[in-house]
Every structure is written in C-alpha cells, then in structure tokens.
C-alpha cells in the first residue's frame, strides 16, 4: 500500500493527478481562485529556485528576492517605457538576471554558512537600494505601474486571466521538471555531497567552488523567470517586491514546506500566498502573523511540513516491519 502511495510510480501518478486537477480547475471555480492560484504558482517557482540553494546546497541566500525583483523591473521598464513585447522582455530579463547572479556568485561562492547569509543579505539590499534610489530609472518608491499583459506572438494573448493561468502553469511545470532534473543529475548529487561535507568532496577531486557558483547562477535564473511573470501578473512593481521582508517571506515558504524537497517549497509558497491574501482581507497585521508562523515553524516543524509527513510515514513503516517480524 505504502509502495503504491510513496514509490516512484505512485509519485508520478500523484503528480499527474495534481496537475490534472490544476488544469481542469479554472472553469470550475471563480476568477478569484484562478488569479490566486496563478500567484501561488509564480511564487512556487521562486521558492523552488531558493530551495536549490537553501535545501540542496546548504547556501542560505538572503538576497534571493533581488533576482526576482531585477527581472520584474526589467520587464516593467522595457514594457512601459519602450513598449517592448513579451519575447524581448523575457530574454533581456533572463540575460540580465544571469549576468547579475554571475557577478554576485563571484563574491559569494567561496563563503559559507553565516558569512554567505550576511553577504547575500547585503547584496540583495544593494538591488533594493537601486530600485529605491535610482529614481530616474525605477521611479523610486512609487514603483512602476501600467505593465500590460502582452501577446506572446502565437494565437495566445496573456490578457485573458485564464490563458495567463495556463501559461503560468505550463511554465511552472517546465521549471519544476528542469529543477528536478538538475538536482537528480550527477551535478546535483555532487552538490548534495558538498552540502554534507565539502572537504571530503574536494579531496575526491570535485571543484566545489564551481559547483556552488553554478548552482547560485542557476537558482538566480529561475528566480528571474518567476519575476518576469510576477511583473505581468501584478502589472506593477515597486521596491517592496525585493525588500528584506520579501526575502524573509520567501525564506519561510521554503522552510515551512520543507527544504530539499522542491515540492515542499512550492507547497509552502502556496500556503503563504493563500494566508497572505486571506488574512489581509480581515486584518492589517499580516507581518505579525508571518512572524508568529515563522517562530512556530522553527519551534515545532523545523524540517518543514513535507519532511514531517515523510518522517511519519517512515516511522509508520518501521512500526509495520516490527509487527510483521513479531
């Protein structure tokens, strides 16, 4: 029974089921839910990209919202000021995000643990500072509004919320598959090895610096992809998208869901986005609640929800084995 539920085939069937539900959902629900789930998917991509760093590589990046923000700003500036279409925006945003993460990577890839954390925080704030102070380019605190959802060229237009939902869903699935392949590749496995014991991996002949560097750049690129869709989804970008609070929120998505599982952070993103929208309708004290969720998560589920469930299942299995033996 458990093999069916949690074995490789079971997983695949489970995934197909989840995506099938997501695919048939729009006509069955209200537009409120369609836009909310779109938002969950966008932040799901972002949370998964942070998981590449935090969960799989042991690199707790605190500036990850920065890449998201850079891509969102590129789309905003190009589409409002130069009326650029979807593809030029997409390409420029991804290229620029990769360039920035490649430069940042040079500064952070050698540092570990707490140092990594503090440096990425400071670097993330540099991007925030640019968004906030470089007024001629970014309009500062006012942000950039009026980003229109584009035609993608094919007979598809993102103006319709349901089409936008489907496109986001497809992008989410593609990103999930790519990231899953990335962490399951030989490169991903050696990355996990470096997370567990860098000195050992170095002795075995792996270039640990290069592994960390490339992972950082890849994670930045995926963060950029979610930023592009956020700009089109929201129609508005502001420095709030990449401030420290945003990076904290993102961090919580990964921790709450379960670092090192990819699915967990996506789930965590869904939960946080849902709560944020749901709670904001009733009270303005969202930050307070976010902080409390944070503290409770660390105290009671430090491994995240997905890992908690997996642990329970494993424990159940062991119990079953013992009973069978006796």
């Amino acid at each position, binding site marked *: 029974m458990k093999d069916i539920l949690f074995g490789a085939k079971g997983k695949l069937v489970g995934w197909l089921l989840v995506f099938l539900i997501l695919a048939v959902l729009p006509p069955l629900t209200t537009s409120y839910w369609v836009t909310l789930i779109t938002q969950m998917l966008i932040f799901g991509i972002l949370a998964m990209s942070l998981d590449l760093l935090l969960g799989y590589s042991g690199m*707790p990046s605190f500036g990850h919202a920065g890449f998201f923000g850079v891509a969102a700003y590129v789309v905003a500036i190009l589409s409002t000021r130069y009326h650029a279409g979807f593809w030029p925006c997409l390409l420029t945003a991804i290229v620029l995000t990769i360039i920035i993460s490649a430069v940042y990577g040079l*500064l952070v890839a*050698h*540092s570990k*643990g*707490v*140092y990594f*954390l*503090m*440096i990425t*925080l*400071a*670097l993330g*704030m*540099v991007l*925030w*500072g*640019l968004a*906030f*102070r*470089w*007024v*001629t380019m970014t309009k500062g605190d006012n942000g950039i509004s009026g980003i229109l959802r584009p035609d993608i060229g094919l007979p598809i237009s993102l103006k319709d919320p349901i089409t936008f939902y489907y496109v986001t869903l497809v992008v989410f699935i593609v990103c999930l598959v790519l990231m899953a392949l990335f962490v399951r590749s030989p490169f991903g496995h050696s990355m996990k090895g470096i997370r567990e014991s860098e000195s050992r991996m170095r002795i075995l002949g792996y270039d640990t610096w290069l592994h960390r560097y490339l992972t950082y750049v890849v994670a930045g690129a995926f963060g950029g992809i979610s930023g592009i869709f956020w700009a089109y989804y929201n129609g508005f970008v502001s420095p709030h998208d990449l*401030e*420290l*609070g945003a990076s*904290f929120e993102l*961090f919580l998505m990964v*921790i709450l869901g379960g670092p090192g599982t990819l699915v967990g952070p996506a789930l965590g993103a869904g939960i946080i986005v849902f709560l944020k929208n749901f709670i904001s309708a009733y009270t303005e*004290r*969202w*930050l*307070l609640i*976010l*902080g*409390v*969720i*944070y*503290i409770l*998560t*660390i*105290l009671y589920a*430090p491994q995240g929800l997905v890992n908690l469930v997996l642990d329970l299942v494993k424990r159940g299995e062991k119990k079953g084995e013992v009973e069978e033996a006796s």
Partner: protein
Amino acid sequence: MGFLLTQTLNGLSFGALLFLLSSGLSLIFGVMKIVNVAHGSYYMLGAYIGLSVITRTHNFLLGLIVGSLIIAVIGLAMERIFLRKFPLQDLPQMMLTMGFALVFRDLALLIWGGDPYNLPSPAFLIGSIDLHGVVFPIYRLFVILIAVIVAILLWMFNEKTLVGAKLRAAVDDYEMAGGVGVNVPLVSGLMFAMGAFLAAFGGVMGGPIFGVYPGVDFEFLPLAFVVTIVGGMGSLKGAAVGSLLVGLIDNFGKALVPELSYFTLFAPMAIVLAIKPTGLFGRG
C-alpha cells in the same frame, strides 16, 4: 574644502552610530554564532521607546536609559526563552530572530503608527558651531564623542576585566572555555543583552539625526551587516574600523552620487571580501 569637512564630519557621526549598532551584532556573533536579524529592530524599538519617554518627560537622558534598558531585557528574554533551545545551530537561530524582526516591526507600526518622528535633541546640544566657515550641528559632534567613549569602555571591559577575559575565551573556543569553568551560557546571555542595549542606545542617540520611522530597522540592518563583514565578525576593532569606513563611504556616496548610494557600499565590501574573506580583523 567646506564640503569636504562637512561631509567628513557627517560621515564620522554616521560611523559613530553604526559602531553602536554593529559592535553588539559583531560580539553576539563572535560568542554565540548567532546572526541576529532582529538587531535593526532593537535600534528602531529603542528609538521609539526613547521618543515616548522624552515627549512625556522632556528628559533626553531618561529616554536614553529607559529605552536601552527595556530593549536589553527584551533581548535577554529572547535569548533565554527561544534562542537557548537551539545552541550553536546557526540557521534555526537566525530564522527565529527573523520571525522576531517581523513581529517587532508590526508591533511598532501598531503602537507608534506609520508617521516618521524626530527625537528632540537635548537642550544644551541644540545649535551649531562654526569651524572656519563650516557650520556643523553640535549634536553630531556629541554623538561622535559618545561613541568614542563607548568604544573605550567596551575595549576596557573586553581587555581589562575578568568578564571580558571570559568573553574572549568564549569567542576563541566555546567548548574549551566551558571546559575550564567559564559559565558560557551566562556570558552569552549577558553578551546578548549588552548587544541589544547598545543597539537601542544607538537608536535613541541617532533619533535626533535620522529620526525613527517604520522601515528604519531593515534600513540599518544591512549597513550593520556590511560593517561586520568588512571589519570581521567578533572583533571590536573590526567593528570600529568597519563603522568608520562604511559611515564615510555611505555619506560621500550619498552626497556625490545620490542615485547609486547603496551601490557605493558594495565596492569596498567586494574588495575586502576578495582580499580577505573573513574581514579586516576577523579570524578564520
């Protein structure tokens, strides 16, 4: 010439504030390996509490003491009740402080609202002095003086007292210090409270210059981090040198290229990291 002198003095006074903020951060990290994300919140809450006390009593000194002490107690409670549960696990500890930073930020918004305030400076320090045609507020000079005194006191505490020696032992080797009979948890708790005290002290001192407003916590925190990264974690000397560097660079950056002001901090940090990854005075 006048511009240069004014900006240098501005930079020095900002560096003085940064020292108050980051010396605690650096020492807390040095002893307990905790990256305290709530450190900027201590600064903000200290300034707010100071503001409330000063507007009621018109006594700056009282505001300074009450603000700093209340935050020291809050810091101690945080350490005793929550952080203590995860000894030497940097990620959970850091995330706990992150949760607290969010809670503090929202509580401050709830209590003091969203308007920016300026703390009144003490009466005898209002006004400016004229240095060869350069007019400069006395209060800023006073902040520099206080920071120098605090730095000397901290240095004496660290180098000349028994508690300071125990502290240094705990920084160097947590386990060995415990092994030879230093009460490391006590030293750590004390350290944490002192760091919180200093941050809140800096908040009240900085209030008349920079004011206090929602968001000041997350605005100063990265600066304190840059100071700690540049100076080296756990080093008082590093915190002092780093604060001066960052204070001056930030100030000249803001004056010369206002649009890229955060960016100008980035360069010295990158250079230091490239040459010495542990910071100027940090040890491995």
